[in-house]
């Protein structure tokens, strides 16, 4: 890894507001732990060159950012989703734009900077417990900078009456801004919650970094649905880490859709720590032009009789590149593990590329583990079938590509999210504009 001393790292020099002693200690431990930034020689970063991130002169303070209005927020949030909304603009919480009312009995949902004061004990107890499982330099960096984001605590048996949407809006700023959003979601026994992380931009040419870490801690029999909708500017960088820790019989569904960004890294690292926990990891990455979309999954079965399902799909056009690394780790104790991993990619141009690598580490002997990775093109037989029913070739192709993308949408509970994604697909996929899609 690159030594910090070798390379001035502007990101680490950004001052963060002082916090209570325990938080300062947390940050400073992270600083001293920071191993430096990864290079292509690091196995986990073999296909993703982050030099463009390191060479960007991120500035601590935001000057000359355009203002964001309530109308802008309405425009970019998930349409028709009745969510409790926390809005961040260029990394700063905006109470005036947020709409985070009470979510019902037993539910706390706050910007993290407030929770640091009001719920210090809970925070101190849980912060870092899920993300510490699998350290990544960017996670450590986030640890060192932790200051704001979302804090959710759902008491045993409670259930927020709406999904919680964290909307991170980026605008063009005079100097590139680096933000390190930190979300902590703790869901109690037999409780439920739905959380959306939503990254959008108002300026397609804005340059910035979002280095987000979300910890999701599910108590026994909790049910959590998490969404990551990444719609950054195509000149921006997004590193998102979702660290999940699941107790017995909990159910977690994670849906990730990567659409924007120049270099994007999506880490999903669930640990199935209690018996009969179930985890679904559903993802789609759609790249074009020069986009680089890297997905690193690490599913760890640390208790018996758990089930994990990974369904990731990529659609790459132009000169874009997709990466999928799917690691399944089955501990010795995790007998009767049932793990499925599937990664399917569709290339729409000759210059698009995908690197897919399944990695299995199995230490138990009574397990069912299947994995498969495919990379192909639009199926000519299917195109002919559609054309033989009167559809033109562009429409036939567009429908097939759309269908490939949309398969995973059916696994999402929130219909407004499905609708938004359908619209995004029609916007982004070649020739899809003529399609009329019902969701």
């Amino acid at each position, binding site marked *: 890894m690159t030594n910090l001393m070798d390379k001035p790292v502007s990101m680490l020099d950004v001052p963060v507001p002082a916090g209570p002693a325990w938080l300062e200690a947390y940050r400073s431990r992270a600083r001293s732990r920071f191993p430096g930034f990864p290079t292509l020689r690091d196995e986990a970063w073999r296909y993703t060159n982050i030099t463009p991130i390191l060479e960007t002169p991120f500035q601590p303070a935001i000057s000359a950012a355009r203002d964001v209005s309530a109308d802008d927020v309405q425009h970019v949030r998930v349409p028709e989703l009745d969510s409790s909304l926390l809005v961040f603009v260029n990394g700063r919480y905006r109470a005036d734009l947020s709409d985070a009312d009470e979510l019902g009995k037993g539910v706390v949902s706050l910007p993290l900077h407030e929770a640091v004061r009001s719920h210090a004990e809970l925070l101190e107890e849980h912060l870092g417990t899920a993300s510490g499982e699998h350290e990544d330099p960017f996670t450590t960096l986030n640890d060192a900078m932790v200051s704001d984001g979302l804090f959710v605590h759902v008491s045993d048996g409670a259930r927020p009456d709406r999904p919680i949407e964290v909307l991170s809006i980026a605008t063009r700023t005079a100097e590139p801004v680096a933000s390190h959003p930190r979300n902590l979601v703790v869901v109690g026994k037999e409780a439920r919650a739905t959380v959306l992380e939503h990254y959008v931009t108002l300026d397609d040419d804005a340059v910035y970094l979002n280095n987000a870490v979300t910890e999701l801690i599910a108590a026994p029999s909790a049910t959590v649905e998490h969404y990551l909708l990444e719609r950054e500017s195509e000149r921006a960088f997004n590193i998102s880490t979702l660290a999940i820790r699941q107790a017995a019989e909990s159910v977690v569904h994670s849906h990730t859709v990567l659409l924007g960004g120049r270099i994007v890294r999506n880490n999903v690292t669930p640990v199935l720590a209690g018996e009969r926990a179930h985890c679904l990891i559903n993802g789609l990455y759609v790249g074009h032009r020069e986009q680089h979309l890297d997905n690193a999954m690490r599913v760890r079965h640390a208790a018996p009789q758990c089930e994990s399902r990974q369904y990731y799909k990529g659609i790459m056009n132009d000169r874009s590149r997709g990466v999928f690394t799917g690691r399944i780790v089955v501990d010795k104790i995790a007998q009767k593990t049932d793990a499925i991993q599937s990664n399917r990619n569709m290339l729409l141009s000759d210059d698009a590329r995908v690197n897919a690598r399944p990695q299995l580490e199995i230490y138990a002997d009574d397990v069912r583990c299947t994995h498969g990775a495919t990379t192909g093109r639009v199926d000519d037989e*299917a195109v002919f079938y*559609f*054309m*033989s029913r*009167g559809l033109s070739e562009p429409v036939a192709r567009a429908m097939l590509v*759309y*269908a490939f993308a949309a398969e995973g949408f059916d696994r999402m509970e929130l219909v407004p999210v499905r609708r938004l994604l359908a619209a995004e697909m029609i916007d982004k996929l070649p020739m899809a504009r003529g399609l009329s899609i*019902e969701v």
Partner: protein
Amino acid sequence: MTTPLLQIRNLHVRLEDDPSVEIIKGIDLTIMPGEVHSIMGPNGSGKSTLAQVLAGKEDYEITEGEILFNGQDLTELGPDERANSGIFLAFQYPVEIPGVSAMQFLKAAVNAKRAFEGQNELDAGALLKHFRAKAEQINVPFEMLKRNVNEGFSGGEKKRFEIFQMAVLDSVLGILDESDSGLDIDALRIVADGVNSMRDGRRSFLVITHYQRLLNYIVPDHVHVLVNGRIVKSGGKELALELEEKGYRPFGVNESAVAGAGA
């Protein structure tokens, strides 16, 4: 004099990727409006290739001869234009399309045809009504439309869905490539009844089959025997019975070369 609906003259077809392989070696066939023709022949004789060439598949190259549809040269038209002109191929192996509902697919297809004919798109209500009527006519459950195209359909369901699509698209020439294979007796009846319900003296069918049995239900006007890329004999419906009895041996095909025929 009536114009033939389909007229094939001296058709020769080779594989596009490997022109040394000639699959169709000079076929003549004329189908008048309202007629049902049947093609029978051993495995690998070129039946599906003929069907796919008529539908406009690009893997094949026509090296000689011509195909006229309603007196118009068909060879320059793409598969979509042929479909919109009224040609329908019921596939031997319908393709499964995860992610596209049958409903969405057929809406797009019907409106593509209407656009081709210069008509306005039908709205959702009118389309639904049309689909319901056709589902009843062909005897397929309307629920099928809510599923993804052919995905997880049983063999029989796929074949029935093909016939249903033809009815929905109101095609005038139905090319049925083994629409009977894999069907149980009841499903066979349903498919045959569906086809017969579309016979109106105007619409024609080219029925490719291995079994005489289907032809008891869909009674052909003409039967042709295709062996090794050529029609070696044509006759009336009794020819099918003769084939059932004697096999293809009288046409110079030995048993082992057709192992699996009719399987």
